[in-house]
């Protein structure tokens, strides 16, 4: 098998075409209790990370926004309020279970007039060129098989001047924090997953996939290689999470 034929699934090396199915199984398993687990795992801080993403997005009334790997719709819901009836928000996710949970949640909140739900693969986005003012992908890029292909696909569907925001786990900038974070990720998270979703393997994968994800500077380079300009990142919570931003020229 050549390097191009294989990819990481956590710490395991798997065939590239098998990764999407394996990731799908993880999210099918956790979809129903995804929000609860996010709150438990992060102590609610994921809401602060997402709020900062919304602020940095610069989205305003009338904009078209694509939220890839939108999951249970936290970002999409807020964007839908900001863009108003003149705007458009597309919540996309490759996983039908996650999309179903997100769609039910938002429809139950009475949000539907400017929201669309699309099952889509980030690597092959089914939208015309230059369609969106802003694209966000929160805690989704590390699950994508070919990240560079996905970044190029996002660049294609962004309008010139449009912004991509990648919110993703990253590398802590402090050794002590890094050690504490490792213990938490590999000991506490799988245990918590077992208790809440009766599935420790999915949370073991979560911890492993975070470690295999490119660090802050590597991801910034990947965005620049894909064609994004004015790339920058902001570390949050000591670098446990980083928000990358790039603009389509």
């Amino acid at each position, binding site marked *: 098998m050549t390097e191009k034929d294989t990819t990481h699934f956590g710490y395991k090396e798997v065939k590239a075409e098998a990764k999407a199915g394996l990731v799908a199984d993880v999210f099918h398993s956790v979809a129903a209790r995804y929000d609860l687990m996010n709150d438990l795992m992060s102590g609610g*801080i994921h809401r*602060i990370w997402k709020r*900062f993403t919304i*602020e*940095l997005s*610069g989205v305003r009334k009338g904009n078209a926004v694509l939220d890839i790997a939108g999951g249970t719709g936290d970002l999409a819901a807020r964007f839908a309020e900001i863009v108003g009836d003149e705007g458009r928000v597309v919540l996309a996710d490759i996983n039908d279970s996650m999309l179903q949970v997100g769609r039910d949640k938002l429809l139950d909140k009475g949000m539907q007039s400017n929201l669309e739900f699309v099952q889509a693969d980030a690597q092959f986005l089914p939208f015309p060129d230059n369609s969106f003012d802003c694209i966000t992908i929160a805690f989704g890029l590390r699950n994508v098989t070919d990240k560079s292909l996905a970044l190029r696909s996002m660049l294609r569907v962004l309008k010139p001047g449009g912004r991509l925001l990648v919110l993703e786990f990253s590398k802590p900038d402090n050794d002590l924090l890094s050690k504490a974070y490792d213990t938490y990720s590999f000991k506490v998270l799988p245990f918590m997953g077992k208790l809440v979703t009766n599935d420790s393997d999915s949370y073991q994968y979560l911890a492993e996939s975070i470690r295999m994800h490119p660090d802050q500077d590597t991801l910034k380079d990947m965005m620049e290689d894909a064609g994004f300009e004015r790339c920058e990142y902001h*570390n949050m919570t000591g670098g446990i999470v980083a928000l990358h931003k790039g603009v389509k020229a």
Partner: protein
Amino acid sequence: MSKGINPTLHTAALAALESGLNRALQLAPATAAELEQLQDCIFALHCTAPEIDVYLQPAASGIRLMGIHEGPVTTSVRGEASDFAELATAKDPAATLINGSLELQGDSAPLIELQKTLASLDMDWEAPLVDTLGDVAGHQVAQIVRAAVGWGSQASSSLTRQLGEFIHEEARLTPPRLELEDFYRDVQDLGLRVERLQSRTARLRRRLQKLQG
């Protein structure tokens, strides 16, 4: 965004503040309706000490606070925290903006409107009590709270007045305000008379020099 402030902490602080403000606004529906008129306005508050930037966007659903805003702003105000506090509590915000040390750019009218709307926040404390405790018990508790708050504010103003009277009149620790103002007026009068006397003596000296010459 504010330089040197951790984005997580900054965002968390703004989220907490926004949540508190919006809870208060939920108890004041009239204020929320007035804020709707300003929903297309963005106010940039640049605090120089401590160095924090906050962008404020009113809407019918409440107030949105942001640490970053890249679009155009309606009104931008720069100053120290104490200047902002002075503006927030001013009875006449227009005069505070003109005479105070805040630096203003953009349209001042919406900012004055916002200050007046927020300053006149009239919260209906009874509504959440009634929701939680029911109509009768909620109303009774609200009456007790209202009476306690009324008594407290009356007692506080009476205590302040009596303490002032004791300091000025009984203990004679400081002169009363009117006496002090009278004294200042006398000093000012004396200053003016001295100036007049100085100019008169100068004129006489010049005249004497002319006669001698």
